[in-house]
């Protein structure tokens, strides 16, 4: 793999950039691999990467039906934070966040991880109490967060309207080392590193069946033929249910559209990421200058990767109240992704009823931030059969009632 650096760019500039290599190879599938990962999204690629890096398992194929990074990894609003409430969540998201800190150097690919800080606004007394609770939990979980008052919020976000007529800003939960990264670069950086380890990323190849013998997985059928494997990792987000069906089990997941939108670019006016959960909207400003906006999921199940306009309207309306100046900006583009939601809104990283077949999914609306940590834990689980990071996220939890409910902080109004 050719090393990326300012020096390399300068050298290439002198020969019109003709010397750059492919970032990843485009191989035909081999007959057999030690491990096959289905889905070249962030989670699939990161799983493969840490299998190779941490466990020396490099005879790996990552099979992708479209283009790598083209699922939710390439459609999300890139918020990275780890101020989750429940212990298992805080553990995996914080592991992830801390991996992000050095990931550009690790992968030799600038992911533009930008710990610009994330504020979750409290706009009701109930939310104030919820976030104070989270701050207490985070302190014990080793996740640095801080409860801040309205004035500090205003200093950090000059464009915010503290005295909205409906929901005044009462403070916020502030994670200084949260932020954003460039989503495509995360997929590309991992893909390049996987390819450099000799792994095969096979794009435009859909997995259509899972082969098994005596309760163990033996390979997959694909649009490019059958491929054998020792172990299989299903990492396909919104399509988890379909793959599980091929493998012969069912998952407690539903697929819904989550939408996002961007404004036209403007000069920098907001440095931090702001989430306003009472009114269902969040916003950050990208390095290009676009205001990146997201909200809640559509209220019905679908697979179309586009959403209804109603949600966009609610989100924008809420954010115009929160940041009045955006009223005169324009929406440039809206899009949607299909997110896989579990009943407790926490992911599944687990063995499955099929031997040697593992699943990583259910990240729902918030799995971009988890990519490195999830890959790390999933690789450990697949390589060794156990990972403290993933243990609580096993499929059994639904049978046992051991939910990891993260919607708690936004519970009910009294």
């Amino acid at each position, binding site marked *: 793999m050719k090393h*990326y*650096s*300012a020096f390399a*760019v300068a050298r*290439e*500039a002198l020969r*019109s*950039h003709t010397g750059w290599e*492919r970032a990843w190879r485009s191989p035909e599938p081999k007959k057999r691999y030690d491990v096959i990962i289905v889905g070249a999204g962030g989670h699939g690629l990161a799983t493969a990467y840490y299998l190779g890096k941490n466990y020396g398992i490099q005879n790996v194929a990552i099979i992708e039906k*479209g283009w790598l990074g083209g699922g939710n990894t390439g459609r999300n609003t890139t918020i990275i934070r780890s101020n989750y409430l429940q*212990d*298992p969540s805080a*553990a995996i998201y914080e592991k992830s966040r801390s991996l992000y800190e050095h990931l*550009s150097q690790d992968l030799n*690919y600038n992911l533009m991880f*930008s*710990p610009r800080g994330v504020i979750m606004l409290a706009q*009701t007394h*109930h939310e104030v*109490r919820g976030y*104070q609770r*989270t*701050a*207490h939990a985070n*302190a*014990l*979980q080793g996740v640095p967060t*801080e*409860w801040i008052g309205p004035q500090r919020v205003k200093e950090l976000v000059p464009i915010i309207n503290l005295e909205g007529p*409906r929901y005044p800003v009462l403070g916020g939960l502030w994670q200084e080392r949260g*932020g954003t990264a460039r989503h495509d670069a995360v997929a*590309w950086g991992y893909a390049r590193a996987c390819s450099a380890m000799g792994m095969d990323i096979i794009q435009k190849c859909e997995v259509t069946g899972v082969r098994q013998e005596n309760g163990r997985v033996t390979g997959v059928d694909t649009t490019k033929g059958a491929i054998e494997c020792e172990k299989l990792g299903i990492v396909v987000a919104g399509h988890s249910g379909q793959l599980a069906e091929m493998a012969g089990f069912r998952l407690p997941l539903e697929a819904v559209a989550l939408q996002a939108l961007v*404004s*036209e*670019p*403007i000069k*920098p006016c907001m440095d931090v990421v702001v989430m306003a959960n009472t009114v269902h909207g969040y916003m950050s400003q990208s390095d*290009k*200058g676009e205001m990146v906006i997201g909200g809640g999921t559509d209220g019905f199940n679908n697979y*179309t990767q586009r959403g*209804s306009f109603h949600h966009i309207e609610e989100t*924008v*309306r*809420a954010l115009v109240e929160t940041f009045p100046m*955006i*009223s*005169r900006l*324009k929406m*440039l*583009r*809206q*899009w949607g992704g299909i997110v896989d939601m579990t009943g407790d809104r926490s992911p599944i990283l687990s063995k499955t009823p099929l031997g040697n077949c593992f699943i990583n999914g259910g990240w729902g609306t918030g799995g971009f931030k988890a990519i490195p940590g999830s890959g790390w834990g999933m690789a450990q689980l697949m390589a060794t059969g156990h990972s403290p990071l993933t*243990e609580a996220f096993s499929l059994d939890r639904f049978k*046992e*009632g051991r*939910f990891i409910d993260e919607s708690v902080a936004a*519970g*009910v*109004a*009294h």
Partner: protein
Amino acid sequence: MSTRLSKLGRLIDRTKQVSFSFNGTTMRGFAGDTLASALLANDQMMMGRSFKYHRPRGVVASGAEEPNALVGLGEGSRFEPNQRATTTELFEGLSAKSQNHWPNLDFDIGAVNTAFARFLPAGFYYKMFIHPQPFWKHVYEPFIRKSAGLGKAPDAETRDADTYEHFYAFTDVLIIGGGVAGLQAAKAAALTGVKVLLVEQTAHWGGRAPVDGGTIDEGPVDKFVEQIVSELETMDNVTMRLRCMGAGIYDHGYALAYERLTDHAPQVAGPRHRLWRIRAKQIVTATGAIERPLSFAGNDVPGVMLASAMRDYVVNWGVTPGERVVVATNNDDAYRTAITLKNAGVDVLRILDARASGGGALADEVRALGIRVDPGKAIAKVSGGKRVKKVSICNQEGIGGARDEVSCDAVAMSGGWSPVVHLWSHCGGKLIWDDAQAHFRPDPDRPPLGADGAGFVSVAGAANGALALGETLSDANAAGLAAAKAAGGKAKRPKAPLGESAAELPMEPVWLMPANADTPLRVKSWLDFQNDVKVSDVQLAAREGYESVEHTKRYTTLGMATDQGKLSNINGLAILADALNAEIPQVGTTTFRPPYTPISMGAIGGEARGEVFQPIRRTPLHDWHDRNGADWEPVGHWRRPYAYQLPGESVEAAVNREVKNTRENLGLLDASTLGKLIVKGPDAGRFLDMMYTNMMSTLKPGKCRYGLMCSENGFLIDDGVVARIDEDTWLCHTTTGGAERIHAHMEEWLQTEWWDWKVYVANVTEQYAQVAVVGPNARKVLEKLGGMDVSKEALPFMEWRDGQIGGFDCRAYRISFSGELSYEIAVAASRGQAFWDALTEAGKEFGVMPYGTECLHILRAEKGFIMIGDETDGTVIPQDLGLHWALSKKKEDYLGKRAQQRSHMADPDRWKLVGLETVDGSVLPDGAYAVGEGTNANGQRNMIGRVTSTYYSANLDRGIAMGLVKHGPDRMGEVIEIPGTDGKSYKAKIVDPVFFDKDGEKQNV
């Protein structure tokens, strides 16, 4: 130079001068000008700077596809960045500023980026700025952020001075685009009698056709347009809107249109934008086609323009972009520009036709006008910095050698036409590649599908690839008729008007000019003018393996600018396909997403701003509370008084006063916000037995029971007192925040699982004003008001009666959430204020005071009563809270019962409800956790419990708290450690959760 001509200008009114300013300089134009045409008339070709290299940018198009001429418009609370000059209608006093430069448009420091361009190829930032790690956030990124962005951010503190509104429209056929195709389609549809809505984004009907020439029914196009518009205007079933853009098409025939009402006339009162939310049975997109630029070196120099745009400026606004023009083309249509220019008195120096065979009839006409046509020739390079100076000419075939030079000040380019397929594609319509015209057009066999599986969008005219006037009209006629029929119209067969235009020879695709341009040329051949993406960038992306069109787009930022690639996409695709040795249709397009052009956030939000953004729900007593010192707390959509402050009193002092007074004398609480659901029907009892963990079917009329409700996962989701009203009617109280949610929950079960049960649920929350009369003097005040017998014997605890109190018809419940003698009395909402007044008046001698939600919370915590949302958070089961007594053992089933039998739910290690008392009497921090020994496998401190409610109790003069603690009830008296985020660690003793009046003596009097 660009200048106003003495003739032409079909859209301007030369008798009405308009003055405006650009970057502080006052200029003049005419009514009917766009900002772009007026700037050109003032010889202001350069209108902005590009995004990445800060290159000088001139206007290149004349409509919505413009990527370059973006300005900041207006001032202060009416400032708006990134407005296209080409779609901004001129008005008196308009003030525009160009963008993305410092210190000014002519001299921009950022332009040094051009000098470094070779170091900044596509994706350079992924390869650089990696070390040292902290530098990205602190050094590189801030720099990149500042130089990126386009327009200025609106001022943070001023609120948008304009208003916005939404329209809801229902129509049989929606036609998007008011060119000749849209007009004819509308007419064909309307004649069948169906309802037609026709929208056009510009301020004029007729689209391009009046500029392009030709005849319709043997008359001029303008006349046809005038006639058909006046015909449509007289039809009752037709609604027409100008300045109204079809913005997006969504599932189920839902479409958005964006009407700009006062952008062109800011003095007019009323909303600025109107968002139309349309339900249409059928949609016809008659959105026309957009001309493609040609990719040659220097094609981004100000003065290089689309041939059609140049024609527009001359014909529509009487402005010529230059005095000596060179035309480069691969098709016949661009010859029309040459003819138009020549007839307007502008010098056309050369037509470079990349086709070896040259043009057809139009070429002959051009030659007859004395213009030189060079077949097989191409532009090797345009020279000039802020303005075109000269053109070097070479053969199209080849690498661009052996050049001839022509000095000129403008270049018209045409690479052929691409149908506007955006709206067709938004909702899943598919495209096919048309080899003859080298463009994608809608595939009629794969339209967007409605719920019935049939297509609901069709295409008419140029948008369908029917480019010649005659074809356009007949295609549109057929499309309008077909849409009307599909929408239920009665077939009439309107005849298509006869359109005639000059015959054209086929175009030949030219994706790069010259065909094998060498590297020095390719690094200067722009694809995306705004984002500075060049041919060499796309080729680099392909070389590096970013082969999917989506990868290329994202790696190079091609088509990601504010024009969303309207000019650049197809050219970029073709370059990519060539680099990959693939066919263009194999490479495919990126996804078309709404909106067609950007729409304001204000319009999306609509009317619901400020006070009417989620309007506040008010109880009948709201105004009284407001007048009497209420410190408001938002609860759901309600506002409730947190406490009532006396003059000069702090909120804390008010709470403490209320807490003591209610226990010692008499308190009044506005309990109207509590949810009240009537559940009625022969199966209502059976239904409630499933909804609640308790047995409700056996409750006797006249009696009340405290009920718990769980989700199907077993978690406690709501609680409240249920009263049986009569044989088949129950009234269920819910929490304030729960009313709508629980109503929906009940409906969901009734509609999806037990649809055959005979039960109705009605939410009557707002029908009643409900007042809690609480404290030792509660009975006295009611007796003083007189009426119903409220004695212990006549109205025992947990019963209710209908009757009169103080002359008010009411229902009195003897229930208590405070442990005091307490009645909740419901009167008709309209009588609420009068009843409250009567109570306050009569209560004077008994020490009456109103109390708020915080007092309510403290009183219940003193008694160890749980609060939904405090002790519960969606993960807590009744068993955790010691509420086993409320779980009926007699019932076979209730929602959550089976879930509660799962292994983790029965785990003895679950955290259980206890009381907590700090050793020193202080108040525990809210939301704090209790810690145990050591850490877990992930290095986190082991936690053994948490504080769920914590208050200062004025009655006990100490902090009291409730919490969930592992093995809590077995650990009474133990002291546990609770670290705060304030750096302190608190020590708390585990105690019984009932702190006050443990035997309930005060309540049962």
